[in-house]
């Protein structure tokens, strides 16, 4: 079972929920893995402090021209939809930052003069935090291919294990990569105009991706009722509401786990898990 914690708006509490849910389950004796797929700004490690075992480069391929074979025909530039190749006076110029690693140039080169060489764009780290198997992706500074690092994190995971994914914020390509094959998505929001606006975008994305989802409202008493009203009108389940509490904010600021700093919060995460598991197994029985 794979569960993703996502949100349209950043800073609504995705990481807090992902890490505290994972820890609650692990301390109840459940084996699971946590994937930090917010590879531009991964933060789960600040809270769960895993012992790293292995770090490997995350690579994509870039084209390299064998000048001895190249005739300067220009087909590689023609087939590149990203303008990552230009041929000027018979010389091939490659702009690697624009390359999407689709393989068109090497595939269609009539002289077999383009090979693909690995290019490192990030790091995949694996470790353990107690019973939690921990996998994190980290995008290198200046690199653009966020989804490719997310894909590497997911392909490094055990496909049969219970998995919690901390997704990146937003609703575009990185989020799509993070949630594309998950069984359930929890959308975290807050009851403010920004929270609602970005929730609507995230809901539309989940519907387009045909992912089952429900909503968590964090700092549930700071704003107005518009988020709850929207969810009710749209028939979306709100399965957990976390009240605003300065003690939670302070524990978070220090990197402490909420379920340790405020032990009564454990019930809330157990309840959340009960709600998620019920929805996923219902869905599986139906199909």
């Amino acid at each position, binding site marked *: 079972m794979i569960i993703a914690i996502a949100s*349209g*708006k*950043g*800073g*609504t509490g995705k*990481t807090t929920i992902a890490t505290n849910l994972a820890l609650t389950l692990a301390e109840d004796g459940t084996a699971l893995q946590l994937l930090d797929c917010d590879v*531009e*700004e991964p*933060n789960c490690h*600040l*809270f769960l402090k895993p012992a790293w075992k292995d770090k490997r480069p995350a690579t994509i391929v870039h084209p390299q021209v064998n000048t001895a074979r190249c005739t300067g025909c220009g087909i590689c530039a023609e*087939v590149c*939809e*990203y303008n990552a190749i230009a041929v000027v006076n018979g010389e091939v110029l490659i702009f690697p930052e624009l390359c*999407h*690693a*689709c*393989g*068109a140039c090497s*595939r*269609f080169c009539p002289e077999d003069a383009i090979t693909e060489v690995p290019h490192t764009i990030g790091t995949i780290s694996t470790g353990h935090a107690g019973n939690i198997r921990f996998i994190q992706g980290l*995008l290198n*500074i*200046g*690199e*653009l291919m*966020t989804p490719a690092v997310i894909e590497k994190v997911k392909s490094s995971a055990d496909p049969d294990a219970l998995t919690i994914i901390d997704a*990146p*914020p*937003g*609703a*575009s*390509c*990185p*989020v*799509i990569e993070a949630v*594309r094959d998950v069984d359930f998505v929890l959308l975290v929001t807050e009851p*403010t*105009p*920004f929270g609602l*606006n*970005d929730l609507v*975008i995230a809901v*539309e*994305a989940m519907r*387009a*991706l045909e992912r089952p989802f429900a909503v968590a409202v964090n700092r549930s008493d*700071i*704003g*107005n009722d518009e988020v709850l009203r929207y969810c009710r009108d749209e028939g979306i389940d709100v399965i957990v509401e976390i009240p605003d509490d300065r003690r939670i*904010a*302070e524990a*978070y*600021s*220090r*990197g402490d786990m909420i379920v340790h700093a405020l032990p009564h919060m454990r019930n809330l995460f157990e309840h959340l898990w009960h709600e998620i598991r019920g929805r996923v197994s219902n869905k599986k029985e139906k199909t």
Partner: protein
Amino acid sequence: MKELVVISGKGGTGKTSITGALAVLAKQSVIVDCDVDAADLHLILRPTIEYEESFSGGKKASIIADACTGCGECFDACRFGAVTPDKDEMSGVPYIINRLHCEGCGVCYRVCPADAIDFGPAVNGVWRRSRTPFGPMVHARLGIAEGNSGKLVSLVRQEARRVAEERNLDLIIVDGSPGIGCPVISSITGADHVLVVTEPTLSGRHDLERVSDLTAHFGITTTLCINKWDLNPSLAHDIERNALDRRIETVGRVRYDKTVTASQIENRTVIEHGGNGASQDIVALWRTLKEKMR
């Protein structure tokens, strides 16, 4: 003409609330929302849309059912997992292309022996030019689950520069997106000044380091604002000291203040809401920032 870009690394640090407040204090500037994935600035600046245009940042492929022979060449060639066998065969062909996963590379279109793939421009979003009480605004909205956010950000910034020249405005204020990836890089390249808004949490500190590495990588002058600094004053102090080691000066501290959320609910900026808290802190921030940008 100066271009100020506000980013944060970590999401939810108050970037948009502060950008909106700065736009009010700047009196007249060109205001730009480059957080095209989850744009919120319009919710507090109340723009009246004057012009709207759809945006195409790339192409998408789809299978022409009548021509498809089901050979599977497209399935083998696609590196993005966008071509999948159609289990239900609802479309009448053995394969379908999932538009959301299509990267627009055109490899399937070029390998198809039956000319059964349609490959053409896709609409990825929309951009708008609007009027606000604080100056013209250029903003955009990426389509649901779309890509090409970097290209849309570049287009929006280019339009903002054009508007600034046309109206003779010497300041552009840009609300960026969270993270350090494609839309953020598109938002900051070539800008004059980056203001990073962070918060005194371990995540805020960690993400500030990453985003400062990014602005250093592109050689852009960077200053810092710590929002909700009084949530953890000692960490706020640490963050400021670390930033100074990177030659990033702190130009403002904004206190934790419920009027920020209250003003958002009133669909206006915290400056218009007023009060002696965050609003006053942002006035002081603007004064210092203006000096630094000279």
